[in-house]
């Protein structure tokens, strides 16, 4: 079995779903006609995409003289955008790989969309190195292949070439991981489809059958891919940071860059995941699968990584001062007070200050606040890359070469174009494939959903901080019983069926037992115990837990004798019960 889940955790799948409900809900966006929101989004995205392609064609036709780069500032929006997109692309693999290794079950709600997002973000990122070289038609010179130019090889000692390898590997592995996860879900869509759609999905699903051996290998494959994708995801942004850190430019030449870039990448990636998820769950009505709990978990990661990034900013400043190296000191002084001071303060506000709101649980669980802050972080992380790249280059060693840079419409157009590419691909994906991993959500339904059937089953259905949910628990319980699916057992380890039959609509006066008053009865009802029969079959430990959950002290109100008393009451042996109670002291065994 897949391990213990604390009964006090919030369910990851809400709305009392059956397996069939999950299939219906998650396949629905691929089966019905797209809604107005989707259509408007798609038209907007594809317009941006079209404009972006036009600007790229303009660049290729006229050359990169159409950009405002100059001899001093050789990297501007192009590389800023590249690093920004690559950073965004880190959350997908982080969610699917690292959280899989850590057995974080909440990943199942968001991993599919996050992986898709990764792939699309890497596509957008890879565009920039391709076109910023100027002669995009010979970009294949990057690759080491036997050629007629010598053969002349690329410089394997260069971080820029490492980057090529890192990003192409990252793209390939993410794509394989994502698609392998999609195959069983495509099969689910296939088996519901008719006609042409069925044919298409049969090709997409690779003829998946659901055989036990295939599932076993599928899990083995996913686990190993996660294992090797974890160092991979850390290596990619490390290598991106090497593009800067191995140079001799003050402000870039720092050893803190790899961890700082990786934390920043995860930070910006999660911000983009949140932006997308909040829109997706609304657009496709997936609030029961991408719950507030998911949003809160991601906000915690945002808070941690945002704070790491903040510490890195301050460490850079401290080290610049402490090193006593005037060029380094100037570089950082210039970032905060130079001609680009506004981007530095934009970065500080968006990345360091705004996520601090998430120390408050209320803020973490607010969809509106989360959406707003995720947008702030997307902007802030773009500023961060701009600060590192353009601000640093604008003031280099020789004041005579100092320069200022602002983008042309072509550069801005290409950036907008990548946003168009990203959202066009994402919206298409959301129409064609289930945005939430169907099979994976089903596999956690019973261990982490609201149909949890493990130890202390019924406890799982309510938030223990809140005592107002008892009626809801009752309704869930009777619904589960009515299903007759065996999805829900009232008290685990007991004769569930017997309990089931007596339970629906029936309630004994538990206060007839010594030691049980109105408070105690309420606590037991809260734990799903309504009848003598159920109480007779209950485990003492479970009863104690119910009392603790209801805010009672099981040492004062010791339930040890209750099942014994209840057994007599269930069997109608009232005289024996009277005898027993005479021997008890306030319900305690003396």
């Amino acid at each position, binding site marked *: 079995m897949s391990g213990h889940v604390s009964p006090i955790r919030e369910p990851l799948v809400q709305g009392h779903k*059956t*397996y*069939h409900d999950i*299939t219906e809900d998650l396949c629905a966006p691929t089966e019905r006609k797209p809604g107005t929101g989707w259509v408007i989004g798609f038209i907007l995205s594809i317009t941006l995409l079209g404009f972006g392609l036009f600007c790229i064609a303009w660049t290729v036709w006229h050359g990169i003289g159409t950009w405002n780069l100059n001899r001093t500032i050789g990297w501007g929006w192009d590389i800023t955008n590249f690093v920004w997109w690559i950073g965004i692309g880190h959350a997908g693999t982080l969610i699917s790989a690292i959280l899989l290794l850590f057995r974080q079950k909440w990943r199942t709600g968001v991993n599919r969309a996050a992986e898709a997002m990764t792939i699309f973000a890497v596509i957008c990122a890879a565009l920039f190195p391709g076109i910023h070289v100027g002669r995009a038609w010979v970009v294949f010179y990057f690759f080491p292949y036997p050629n007629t130019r010598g*053969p002349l*090889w690329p*410089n*394997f*000692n*260069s*971080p820029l*070439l*490492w980057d090529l*390898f*890192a990003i*192409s*590997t990252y793209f*390939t*592995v993410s794509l*394989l*991981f994502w698609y392998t996860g999609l195959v*069983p879900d495509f*099969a*689910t869509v*296939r*088996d519901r489809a008719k006609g042409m759609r069925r044919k298409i999905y*049969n*090709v*997409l699903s*690779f*003829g*998946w*059958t*659901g*055989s*036990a*051996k*295939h*599932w*076993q*290998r*599928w*899990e*083995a*494959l996913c*686990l*190993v*891919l996660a294992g*090797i994708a974890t*160092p991979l995801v850390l*290596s990619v942004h490390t*290598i991106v940071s*090497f593009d800067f850190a191995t140079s001799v430019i003050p402000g870039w030449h720092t050893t803190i860059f790899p961890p700082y870039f990786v934390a920043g990448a995860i930070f910006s990636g999660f911000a983009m995941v949140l932006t997308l998820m909040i829109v997706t769950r609304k657009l496709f009505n997936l609030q029961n699968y991408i719950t507030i709990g998911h949003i809160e978990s991601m906000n915690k990661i945002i808070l941690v990584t945002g704070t790491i990034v903040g510490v890195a900013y301050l460490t850079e400043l401290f080290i610049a001062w402490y090193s006593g190296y005037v060029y380094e000191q100037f570089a950082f002084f210039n970032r905060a007070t130079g001609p680009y001071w506004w981007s530095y303060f934009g970065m500080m506000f968006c990345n360091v200050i705004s996520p601090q709101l998430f120390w408050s649980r209320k803020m973490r669980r607010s969809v509106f606040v989360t959406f707003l802050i995720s947008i702030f972080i997307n902007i802030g992380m773009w500023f961060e890359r701009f600060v590192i790249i353009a601000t640093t280059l604008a003031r280099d060693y020789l004041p005579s070469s100092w320069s200022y840079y602002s983008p042309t419409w072509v550069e801005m157009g290409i950036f907008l174009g990548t946003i168009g590419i990203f959202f066009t691909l994402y919206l298409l994906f959301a129409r064609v494939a289930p945005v939430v991993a169907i*099979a*994976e959500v*089903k*596999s956690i339904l019973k261990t982490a959903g609201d149909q949890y059937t493990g130890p202390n089953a019924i406890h799982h259905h309510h938030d223990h901080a809140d005592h107002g949910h008892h009626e809801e628990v009752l309704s869930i319980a009777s619904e589960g019983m009515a299903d007759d*699916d*065996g*999805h829900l057992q009232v008290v685990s380890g007991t004769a569930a069926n017997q309990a089931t039959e007596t339970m629906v609509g029936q309630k004994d006066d538990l206060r007839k037992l010594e030691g049980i008053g109105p408070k105690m009865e309420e606590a037991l009802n809260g734990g799903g115990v309504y009848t003598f029969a159920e109480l007779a079959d209950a485990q003492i430990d479970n009863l104690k837990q119910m009392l603790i959950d209801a805010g009672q002290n099981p040492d004062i109100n010791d339930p040890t004798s209750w099942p014994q008393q209840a057994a007599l009451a269930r069997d109608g042996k009232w005289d024996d019960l009277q005898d027993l109670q005479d021997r008890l002291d306030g319900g305690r065994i003396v």
Partner: protein
Amino acid sequence: MANTTDIIYGLYNDEEDLIRAVKEAKSAHLEIMDVYTPFPVHGLDPVLGLSESRLHIAGFVYGMLGTLTAFLGMTWIFTKDWPIIFGGKPHWSVPAFIPITFELTVLFASIGMVVTFYIINGLGPGVVNPTIDLRITDDKFCIAFDKKEVDTSKVESFLRSSGASEVHSKTI
């Protein structure tokens, strides 16, 4: 189709019923053809007697192949094929080879494992496998028996008594 199989199968509504039924079938020495589920059911493999997948061993071999390709390739290129001095560093500058060696290790292992996975499972673009029941990818858990291997009436009574919600026969 050239090779058809007559099967009898039972559909269960819940994975716990399925695991219980598989256990019973094993103890009754009924030869199960295959079990089909909508998602990976944990605890099914040992009951069904499936040995652990060796895919990770293949992954290791592919990964090593990537390591060697990258490292030996760069070594040959920079020391034999076209030695160039970059920044006064030695031709054979091992630390600078590490990032690409690592990336190719991961790349080879991933591609190799994924391709192997599809080949050994007989899956791939354009493959059409016979469908036993359309609801297996939805919410039904299926135990299938090959009629040639088992006594059909015995299997049928077993399926019904072990809690299958439906029992069907089919030629696939």
